[in-house]
């Protein structure tokens, strides 16, 4: 299947933080535009909505929002584009997508977050040997 995501064929060094910022937004837009394809490939229409996937992508990007070195940002963008390409080319499978990006997020699977994990004794037991 031809890759529908164009690789960021740009010089590997962003000239400035502003240019890196622009590239991050371009990457985000490319990812959002591939979301309908992804939902169709992996048939996750009944698990998440496109808007939730957009929020997931945004939160992943936001995890690295504190970085200020343009070269590090370029490297992260390269990894992100590679990941997006893998997903769009169906190199992954449904459980990869669901496990890595959908499950465990409190806003999407609220019931698992509030599950009772056990008594206070058990919590201490899991934490350490000595209590």
């Amino acid at each position, binding site marked *: 299947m031809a890759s529908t995501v164009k690789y960021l064929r740009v010089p590997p060094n962003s000239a400035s933080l502003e240019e890196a*910022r622009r590239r991050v937004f371009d990457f985000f837009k490319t990812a959002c535009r591939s979301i309908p394809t992804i939902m169709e490939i992996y048939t996750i229409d009944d698990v998440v909505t496109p808007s939730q996937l957009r929020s997931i992508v945004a939160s992943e990007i936001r995890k690295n929002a504190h970085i200020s070195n343009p070269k590090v940002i370029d490297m992260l963008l390269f990894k992100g584009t590679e990941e997006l390409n893998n997903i769009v080319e169906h190199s992954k499978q449904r459980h990869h997508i669901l496990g890595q990006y959908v499950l465990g997020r409190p806003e999407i699977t609220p019931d698992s977050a509030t599950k009772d994990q056990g008594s206070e004794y058990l919590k201490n037991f899991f934490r350490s040997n000595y209590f």
Partner: protein
Amino acid sequence: MASALRSAILRHIRVPVTNSLSLSGSAVRSMSSHGDDHLDKQAVIDRVIHVVKSFPKVDPSKVTPDVHFQKDLGLDSLDTVEIVMALEEEFKLEIPDKEADKIDSCHLAIEYIHNHPIAN
């Protein structure tokens, strides 16, 4: 049977053909099935507000047609891009980067979408 009756009657009566559309008078393509070029402005406003309100980080009570995403709703630039993408999905558009950068309030979004000929 009704069609036979109709043709029998029509054979004996002259029904005047009324030309209600004068092609020289109307500038818009009246036979076109494309419909209106522009969406109804109020419908655009309602749909844009609905999209902004459904955004999880937004407080729905603060959303008005004039709200600014970053100044009034306290979102950051990534959230603004996300809202623009949500609007692209809602109206089945693809907004070029230069135009998308300028959209940072509800008012500009409504104007852009209303003036876009393909917005659906």
